[in-house]
């Protein structure tokens, strides 16, 4: 066997193996399709994700499933497949707004609200605490033994609630 023929066989074998490895298996396609169908909405107007469209005979769902499957079979990534759906149906097909531009506010605001709330709660707690003068006065009272305090707390729980 000549060197060039051996090389050709090697290159061909490598290409075949590569293609076989790149082409996703049916199980992989099912898995990715399942993931995508939770990330996009069915465009039939049912206002649910593609996965949860209540009409399991829905023609729009069938068409969207077909687009996803074809893309995945062609070796497109999850991201590229979702982008294809966005190109066809617009951004409203996405079950969550992309974290960019104005849509970023959708993601940021709850976190900001949480932090502002925490800041306010801490501020209120600080403001609520007794002034130093009062603390000094109360400090004059004999200190309470921890065991006694625990017993009082336990007893108070029965009445104060």
């Amino acid at each position, binding site marked *: 066997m000549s060197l060039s023929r051996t090389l050709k066989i090697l290159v061909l074998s490598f290409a075949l193996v590569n293609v076989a490895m790149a082409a996703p298996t049916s199980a992989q396609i099912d898995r990715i399709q399942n993931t995508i169908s939770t990330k996009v909405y069915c465009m039939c107007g049912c206002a649910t994700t593609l996965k949860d469209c209540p009409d399991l005979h829905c023609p729009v769902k069938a068409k969207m499933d077909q687009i996803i499957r074809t893309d995945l079979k062609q070796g497109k990534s999850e991201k590229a497949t979702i982008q294809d759906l966005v190109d066809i149906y617009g951004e409203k097909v996405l079950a969550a707004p992309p974290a960019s531009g104005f849509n970023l506010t959708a993601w940021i605001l*709850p976190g900001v609200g949480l932090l502002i709330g925490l800041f306010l709660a801490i501020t209120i707690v600080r403001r609520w605490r007794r002034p130093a003068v009062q603390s000094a006065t109360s400090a004059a009272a004999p200190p309470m033994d921890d065991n006694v305090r625990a017993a009082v707390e336990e007893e108070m729980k029965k009445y104060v609630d």
Partner: protein
Amino acid sequence: MNQVGAVGLIAALVFAIYGAITGAIAGKLRSPRMLKSAQRAVLGFFVTATLAVISLEYLIYTNDFHNAYVAEHSSLALPLRYKFPVLWAGQEGSLLFWTWLLAIYIGFAVLLNRRKNRQLMPYVISISMAVATFFALADFAVANPFNTLSMASASGMTPFTPADGNGLNPSLQFHQMTIHPPLLYLGYVGFTIPFAFAMAALLTRQLGDNWIRVTRRWTMVPWMFLGTGIVLGGNWAYHVLGWGGYWAWDPVENASLLPWLGGTAFLHSVMIQEKRGMLKVWNMSLIILTFFLSIFGDFLVRSGIISSVHAFAQSDIGPWFTVFLAIVAAFSLTVLFLRLDFLKSDNRLDSIASRESGFLFNNWILLAAVLAVFWGTVFPVVSKAIENETVTVGPPFFNKVMIPIGLLLLFLTGAGPMLAWRKTSFQSIKRNFTIPLIVAGIVGIILFAEGIHGLYTWMSLFLCAFVATSIVAEFYKGARTRMKTSKEKFPSAVYNLTMRNTRRYGGYIVHFGIVLIFVGIAGQAFRFETQGLMGPGDLLHAKDYLFRCEKITSGQKENYQYVTVDLAVTKDGHAMGVMRPQKRFYIASRQPLSHIALRTNLARDLYVVMAGTDQDSGKAIVHVIINPLVQWVWIGGMIVLLGTILALIPSRIERQMADIHKHQEATVEAHHVT
């Protein structure tokens, strides 16, 4: 009967306006005569609203399709048991239903307070009847259920009666649907009463603890109805929609969650005002917010501004609600602002490690949840208005944002009650937290060893163990103390402990129910599903289960055609019987619906849906879902309901106090007579 109903509705509107005005005058002039007149207006409102409801139901039951509402939502073939729910199946009927429920609530509020809260009641009547005026007016002017059908002819418009109606939406033809909407409505509508009491307290400057004590139960009742309605709604979605889930973060679902969260925050923070005289402005703000969110929820359902599987069709009612919401916000916030000087705290905080700060942080998380759900729900509208771009905010967004918030809340559910009022010593924290943390740690290790590595799922189950142990420990400690002091046996000690302080222990039971709901939700992480085409003799594997198609049959029932597939199920070789999922096609409304087959136990649900038939092969499209732990969601919901009912029962201490008050009042009365 159509005219009787129409007259009833107009009369209800007149009574509502009259009651709102006379109530305000009675409050301003402190006139008992005007108060009596306002009370009679409430009675008149209730009677006429009831008359309108009875009239509409009569038209529905007698298949009077000359009435446009009946023709739109009912049909001859509709089974009798589903005739009553037609009342709330559409915009017009449900507005009337809302008005009627409001009449019932106001009637009860007046009845139960006829000898109490004399200063507050005129304004309570005025505010609640003003709200009733809005709903009666909207029902009369925009969505009148007594409109009749007519058609154009040579001699102008002539009355028209179709031979049959369009029929009830098939997804509403389930027994849950005869309970779920009324419960939700009882929740939404009920928040009017605590709001009215709060406004009355502000207007009369009666801002002590009285309005809080009076309204606590008036808040708990709608909160209980709303919560139960939400769980039942999830149960309905699970059994009817055929996607194997119970919560999809749909805008209308969110709309019901918002006032529930607001009410939950109020029911917790109200305790700080009762015990310590703190958070007065906050409590007022929360009750205003809760009422606002209940009206906002109704607005979302009715206006059609957001697309949802549950929403009514787009209508002209949106602007009416927008104006009403603006009036509610402007009025309540103005009154609150004018009374700020009367709402100063009586006490200050003794320590950060206290029940007070626990409640404050609980409110922080609950309000963060309100903000996140609200923002996610309205964001598509905001985006459309600002960017002119339609976006969708669905489960991926809410799951990402709400799961961490939910877990924080779950932690506080366990930690908060273990803190004492005023100050908790380090010893006490150590004593109370040690056992729950040890148990949760052991559970966490076992879960990890069993292969549960998903952070949120693991964390959720870990915290469930922590909270459940802390609740059991609270009962155990309390019972042990009683056993020592009263020589009672353990079961009677637990019973007496609970009945002595129903509010506290009812609250613990509610928390326990919430824990079980979280367990059920965590189970979703292990959901498995598969689908296959099945003809007689075909097999389908789903984990340990094997399905064998026995036969496919078709036929017709009173108002639908069906195709059923009989599936023999075996698990690990053991026969489990036959499951029969069904595909229905409702004739009047021309809509299909999947009727699921379900095998359920505490560990998992076997959920089988017949999606339809394959047109080429004639085989059934069978969808199988294995849903672990779902039953705990429904059990948890029931326990929350039981806990709330228990908390509503007056405790022994409360009853003793009430007897003392009654005796004092009788003495004063006798003294006056003498």
